[in-house]
């Protein structure tokens, strides 16, 4: 999954692009190849992006979760036959392991097509070429999944193997007789070709047919010698083994030629198999997260209803909590305000994630959405300032990153500013943020700035959205259990985002939150006093 110019590393991390990548990961090496080439659609590609999202949505609708899992199981662990196809096409004679890879791949193609049924949105892998090659290998099927160069492939092979079995038996008999003669002479049983004789047991010289391999003070390490009869039998066995090798190689060459004759079509089948794998993974994502197809058009506005940031939603679900879906409409630049822990950053991430999904031609996690394709999605502010290191302060890092972003020439971009300039004086921070929003508007960007600074929206003539915030001041939990405090906070917080049409004094709730999170009562009381002063 390529990022191209759509996302830089810091923005990818802030939007959890790795989570999306993991969620969309295919199960087979064929799919991995296809997935590695998956690039975001650029502005101008709206029709193709939407067509892909619609295709995925249709697949998600055509199959239930269990059927999608079954499709996934078919592609999972299928050995990669690409190198076998390539080697055969270059004239190599394939090894039996390659033939097994191909047989398993052909089987999976047939099973995949069978499960796909009449769904036209999944590509068909079991082409006529696949079926022809599968038929050629069928004689080698051993058990359910195995492959063996069976006698039935060629009469010559049957004869050669029969001759080898007879030659081996003859050699074993000759060696057995030699071994028995030595055992009789020594008056003891011997097995194998190597044995020791204790000097104390020896009454005279070693019997004929025995060769000394090593002498020790108390014993002699011996080997059975090979007499003329043994050598002749061995030569006949080796000749028979060579004949078997030739016959086996001839069958492999014949099978490899069949693969070579269909190599181009098999490559196409492998591509189709990979594409199906990637589409099934995307459909599972769309179904699991109740995604819908966004209107991906040339329209200026970026808007969605009941959008969800699914990496967080999945985490909350694991804890038995629910994500509050949000509505956003972004025509050019806008400001988002609200209390700490009210979901401002999550709102920005939701915007970025939905734009990211649309860029890859995926259904998006929202009930309804209208999403343009962007050249670039940029995250600025909190979460990125610690990444640049060096001697720069937090503020300087933010400014340097902003400078670089503004220096890039992009026709259409989405800029998400999370508390930009929060580390300088509020007066100058506000002025900087207003100026940045004005510049972004002039550049034609869609931008959403989450901030605690007052008066930014009015000064920048930007729409103003706000998180509703706390429904009341929640009671502090009896213990200093942070998790309990967070649960209490979540229950009291209204994460709904609404447009602010009339500017007025906003409640901060920061001191109440500090108290809820366990800050000393005396400190919070003093803070309220200071607020009044």
């Amino acid at each position, binding site marked *: 999954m390529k990022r191209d110019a759509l996302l830089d590393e810091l923005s990818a991390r802030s939007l959890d692009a790795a989570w999306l990548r993991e969620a969309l990961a295919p199960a087979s090496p064929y799919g991995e190849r296809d997935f590695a080439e998956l690039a975001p659609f650029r502005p101008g590609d709206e029709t193709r992006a939407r067509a892909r999202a619609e295709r995925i949505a249709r697949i998600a609708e055509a199959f239930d979760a269990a059927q999608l899992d079954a499709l996934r199981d078919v592609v999972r662990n299928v050995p990669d036959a690409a190198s076998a196809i390539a080697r055969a096409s270059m004239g190599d004679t394939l090894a*039996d392991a390659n033939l097994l890879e191909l047989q398993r791949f052909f089987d999976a193609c047939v099973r995949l097509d069978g499960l796909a049924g009449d769904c036209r949105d999944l590509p068909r892998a079991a082409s006529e070429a696949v079926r022809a090659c599968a038929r050629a290998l069928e004689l080698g099927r051993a058990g359910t999944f195995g492959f063996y160069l069976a006698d039935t492939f060629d009469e010559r092979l049957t004869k050669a193997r029969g001759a080898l079995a007879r030659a081996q038996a003859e050699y074993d008999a000759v060696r057995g007789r030699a071994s028995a003669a030595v055992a009789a002479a020594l008056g003891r049983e011997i097995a194998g070709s190597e044995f020791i004789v204790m000097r104390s047991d020896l009454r005279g010289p070693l019997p004929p047919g025995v060769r000394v391999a090593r002498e020790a003070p108390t014993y002699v390490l011996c080997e059975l010698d090979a007499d003329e009869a043994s050598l002749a039998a061995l030569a006949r066995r080796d000749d028979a083994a060579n004949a078997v090798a030739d016959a086996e190689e001839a069958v492999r060459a014949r099978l490899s030629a069949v693969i070579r004759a269909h190599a181009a079509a098999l490559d196409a089948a492998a591509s189709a198999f990979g594409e199906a794998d990637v589409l099934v993974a995307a459909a599972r994502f769309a179904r699991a997260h109740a995604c819908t197809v966004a209107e991906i058009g040339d329209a200026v506005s970026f808007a969605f209803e009941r959008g969800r940031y699914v990496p967080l939603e999945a985490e909350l679900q694991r804890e038995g909590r629910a994500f509050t879906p949000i509505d956003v409409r972004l025509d050019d630049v806008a400001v988002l305000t609200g209390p700490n822990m009210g979901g401002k950053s999550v709102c920005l991430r939701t915007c970025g994630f939905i734009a990211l999904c649309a860029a890859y031609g995926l259904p998006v996690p929202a009930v309804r959405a209208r999403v343009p394709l962007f050249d670039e999605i940029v995250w600025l502010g909190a979460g990125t300032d610690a990444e640049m290191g060096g001697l720069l302060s937090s503020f300087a890092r933010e400014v340097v990153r902003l400078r670089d972003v503004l220096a890039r020439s992009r026709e259409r971009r989405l800029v998400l500013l999370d508390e930009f300039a929060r580390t300088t004086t509020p007066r100058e921070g506000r002025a900087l943020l207003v100026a940045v929003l004005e510049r972004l508007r002039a550049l034609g960007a869609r931008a959403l700035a989450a901030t605690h600074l007052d008066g930014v929206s009015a000064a920048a003539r930007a729409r103003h959205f706000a998180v509703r915030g706390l429904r009341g001041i929640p009671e502090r939990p009896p213990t200093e259990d942070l998790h309990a405090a967070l649960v209490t906070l979540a229950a009291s917080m209204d994460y709904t985002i609404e447009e602010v049409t009339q500017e007025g004094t906003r409640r901060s709730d920061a001191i109440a939150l500090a108290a809820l999170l366990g800050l000393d009562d005396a400190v919070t009381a003093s803070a309220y006093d200071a607020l009044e002063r």
Partner: protein
Amino acid sequence: MHARVGDSLLSLAQATGLPSLFVVGTGKNVGKTVTMRAIYEACIARGIAPALTSIGRDGEAIDAGDAQPKPRLFLRPGTAIATARDVLPRSPASEMLALSDLRTAAGTLVYARVRHAANYELVGPPTASGIRETVNALANMAPYVIVDGAIDRIAALAGGNDAIVVACGASAANAMDEAVADVRALVRRLRVPRVEPDAPQVRIDGALTPGMAAELIRANERRSVVVADPTKIALTGKAALHALERLDLRCERPLRVVAVTAASIGRDRTFDPAAFARAVAEATALPTFDVYAAEAA
């Protein structure tokens, strides 16, 4: 090796009721492959078609390290093997059972069944987790699994259900006393008993290292020192014996060592077969067999 010795070893291993057997040696060229071959032949003689694999490399004609001849593995039809793709002979053809992504020193691993008797080379996965995965897969392909193990890979024994035969020999020591001490230390380490549930104990997370053992001995620790299994005792030779004598070492999952084989003939030295086997039997208190003299001590 005498057929009788292989049969005795197989009987001891199968008496445990465990589905697999590891042959672990005190060093290189101590007769592991010869021991495995003897047990394998005993299986064949009893009509059992076992599965074989190796931690490392076995059955090659010549040792890649010192160019000396190595014991070959002549395998019979029906035997399942896990070995590297690149060493599986093209002829005679084997039945290909499955392909694995596990890597070995000679390419990825394949599972195959011998269709025609021939010499085979076994190259298995070098990691403990890889060998466990391989043994589990082979257990589905054959009624009994035999693994040619390695002294530096005993971690592979952790979490398994294996009988163990320890191989020692003249090649791995300068003198008979040293060879006997080494095998005694290894066997005692592998046979650390199960902890008594109610005994006062110190549990060791991970491996018991020489430093930790020294610290416990210095502190005159009287409680049972408990590791998960004997492979977590990272002590060898004299250090292992020292710790085993001064600490009450115990484990949660004991291993089953059933016998020892003693190879009295080494590349550079030989020991008196009877004396060596007798000394090993006394030191380990286990049935001991000389792999060349075909004697039980």
